[in-house]
């Protein structure tokens, strides 16, 4: 996972990588929360391009961070979902909580 900050938009851009399952979820969530707080961000863009596998643990991961962003009046977005991830987002209702864009620049331009 790599993270960078768009200072102007107070947005943390999280490039997730590898496999997102229950095993990876806790540590990944803690790392994102730490950076989000330390950098005084309000918004998060999750980039799934580097993710090779995701189960419903990814939903828990995103909803947990959605709550953090909402606490400070921010929002979240997702980019680069593959069809399987898109289906999990769809059936879990996540697409109602957050917009999904094709790439990071599209998401940032709407933050």
């Amino acid at each position, binding site marked *: 996972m790599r993270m960078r900050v768009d200072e102007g938009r107070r947005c943390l851009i999280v490039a997730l990588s590898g*496999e997102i*399952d229950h*095993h990876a979820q806790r540590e990944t969530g803690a790392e994102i929360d730490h950076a989000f707080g330390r950098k005084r961000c309000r918004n998060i863009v999750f980039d799934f391009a580097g993710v090779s*596998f995701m*189960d*419903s643990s990814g939903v828990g991961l995103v909803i947990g961070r959605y709550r953090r962003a909402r606490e400070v009046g921010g929002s979240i977005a997702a980019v680069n979902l593959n069809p399987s991830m898109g*289906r999990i987002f769809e059936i*879990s209702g996540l697409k109602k909580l957050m917009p999904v864009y094709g790439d990071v620049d599209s998401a940032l331009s709407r933050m």
Partner: protein
Amino acid sequence: MPDNEVTVTMKARSQNEAFARIAAAAFVSAADPVLSDVTDIKTAVSEAVTNAIIHGYASDPARDVRMTMRMDGGDIYIEVSDDGAGIEDVALARQPLYTSRPELERSGMGFTVMEAFMDSVEVESSPGGGTRVIMRKRLSG
């Protein structure tokens, strides 16, 4: 592919969620499946094994999760079972967004994802008597 059956037993450690997915993908690979079927099966297996570890055994690494994979014609059957806590109300547990462990930041979508990615999902469980999840998928092509 010829009909076949393999059973693996793994400790209730979260590292074994990935092992279970790889084992299922390896088992089904003999049938030369399309990639989307492999992804669907890996996702459903990941959900079932995670449930057994977290909910069946409260992540006690001394306990065993069993996974039996069976190929029968063009159908793959995967059974994931534990001898753990069991489920009091299976119908409630299968509801989308229901979780018995909200403190773990779980989405409550495990059974819903299994149902979406497989053709059928049966759940047999009783409090204190463990849980058995039997999933079936007809391979494409």
